[in-house]
């Protein structure tokens, strides 16, 4: 069983909700990325998403756009990220998922990407600009090697969602808001009902929900109706504000721990 599948099986067995944390790889630098992943794992994250920086991140808000820009200014590339993952695998077994726009992967070569990513210990890939119809090649090449995590949105109709779920692997990434990434003061009022509907269709594919979640309260709200929550921009903001000094890492760990405790407060309550 893959690290990702094992993790979700373990969460289910223990009646716990998953915490998926996103950081942009190479922000502020690739060495820092390794330390950050280890810190996230120790603070209670179940899965880490590593954002591959892209020049034109059209599904992202200002926070992740800027992180992407900082990483690119450091000369970060997909190739360098893969080699960072390789060395990181000596330090942690936490499931790692790459989040990359399609062009860096296409440019790297789809087949080579799948082989290299699986070899260094990447567990899955999320491609925000590769909808169902365009993802067939990547899915075929990835079968048995990498999970290709599909996305669904509030605008996705049920019939289409069924097809997305059938083609997906790893988990289903449900985008909680009609919009781009970034922290939000409030989440849509209909979110709980939407998540319940999506959860039914997702069946055995774990449901993770992200976009806009930045507080323990929001984590609890979303966690109650999903298998896992995804937090990104809020972490990226902490990293860009406090850096990766001991104090910065501690601030990050405290925040992740607060999310963890918020989710664990839900255990056994259903």
């Amino acid at each position, binding site marked *: 069983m893959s690290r990702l599948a094992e993790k979700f099986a373990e969460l289910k067995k223990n009646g716990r909700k998953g915490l998926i944390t996103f950081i942009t790889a190479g922000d502020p630098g690739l060495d820092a990325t390794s330390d950050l992943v280890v810190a996230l794992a120790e603070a209670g994250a179940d899965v880490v998403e590593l954002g591959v920086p892209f020049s034109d991140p059209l599904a992202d808000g200002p926070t992740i756009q800027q992180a992407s820009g900082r990483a690119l200014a450091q000369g970060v590339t997909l190739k360098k990220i893969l080699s960072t993952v390789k060395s990181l695998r000596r330090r942690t077994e936490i499931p790692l998922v790459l989040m990359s726009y399609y062009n860096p992967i296409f440019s790297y070569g789809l087949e080579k990407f799948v082989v290299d990513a699986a070899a260094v210990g990447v567990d899955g890939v999320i491609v925000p600009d590769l909808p169902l119809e365009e993802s067939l090649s990547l899915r075929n090449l990835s079968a048995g090697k990498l999970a290709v995590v599909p996305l669904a949105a509030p605008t996705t109709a049920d019939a289409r969602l069924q097809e997305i779920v059938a083609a997906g692997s790893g988990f289903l990434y449900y985008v909680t808001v009609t*919009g781009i990434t970034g922290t939000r003061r409030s989440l849509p009022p209909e979110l709980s009902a939407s998540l319940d509907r999506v959860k039914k269709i997702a069946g055995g594919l774990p449901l993770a929900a992200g976009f806009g979640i930045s507080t323990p309260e929001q984590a609890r709200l979303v966690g109650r109706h999903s298998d896992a929550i995804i937090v990104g921009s809020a972490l990226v903001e902490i990293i860009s504000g406090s850096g990766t000094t001991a104090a910065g890492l501690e601030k990050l760990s405290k925040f992740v721990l607060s999310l963890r405790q918020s989710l664990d407060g839900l255990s056994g309550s259903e």
Partner: protein
Amino acid sequence: MTKANFTVPDERGYFGDFGGRFVPETLITALEELNAAWVKYRQDADFQAELEGWLKEYCGRPTPLYRARKLEAALKIKEVYLKREDLAHTGAHKINNTIGQALLAVRMGKKRLIAETGAGQHGVATATAAALFGLSCEVYMGEKDIERQAMNVYRMELLGARVIPVSSGSRTLKDATNEAIRDWVTNVADTHYIIGSVVGPHPYPAMVRDFQRIIGVEARRQILAERKVLPDVVFACVGGGSNAIGIFHPFLEDEVKLIGVEAAGSGIASGAHSAPLSAGRPGVLHGSMSYLLQTEDGQIEEAHSISAGLDYPGVGPEHSFLKDQGRARYISVTDNEALEALRLLCRTEGIIPALESAHAVAGVMLEAAALKDKIVVINLSGRGDKDVATLANLEAGEGE
């Protein structure tokens, strides 16, 4: 020439290997709805009659096909005709597309239009359509373009649109497009995104082409009426490529050479250019697979051109297809060559072309030796009023 299958795109929006729909899942439903509306109304007699009425009475179509005898003499070419899109309302071909898409938006019940703009011509054309049909309008424009196209910014505001400055990346058309897509992802329920060129996810490249085909349909009819023969060659400038596809498409099945002229900026070898068909490789930007300026690692490179409307690292997927099929040929001219062509057209014909359109004229100048006995049509896609500040700065030695 090779006879290829030009009944493209397929139902997934592919022109051969190019096109498709590479967008966040949030937009798929809206693109499906748009596609359904386009498929319905492109064959709907009432819609087409209404569109035709606006194009005729409001936009001033058909635009003239003007024989430029002084330019012929200067270039030693048998016959040169200018398709005068610069005489269309708002001063460029862009209005053909925005009127068409705004009519679609009204039928789809959308209340708000958004657009990206480079030179400002598409922004002005969108603001115009919004004013005409009573829709609200916001236009994303790079800060660098706002500086160099101040007049068009003011025109958009006069027309009631809000111009939103974009400060990310190269602060030009590419980044304005990113912001427009982000807006659409967020406001997709009540908003229609009018893409200004034959780029973006399916159905945009094919839909915008259909709205711009009128240029070639008219030109073909006009030259047959005047000369009883088809032209030997048609030239058009290519940024995203909507004016070029518009004039090329009705000639695809004819024995007519089609030449697209990209912006070589400071020269292809300098790396500072906007010529993905000449010097790029396939990749995905703004929703479709096409030739693209990109680094070895698949990051999009900044384009460079004196012409804000051509300053874009991508190109419409149908152009990539026509290039690979060998049906159209793509060349490039530098900033300086375009400026020389602009001045030539001013002095010989009394026409100030847009810097974009000057690239098409420069393409003809570059190939003039091979055109001595030919009948040439140039798509003069827009007028140059918007560029006079740029030109004046250049003359004063303050140009970039």
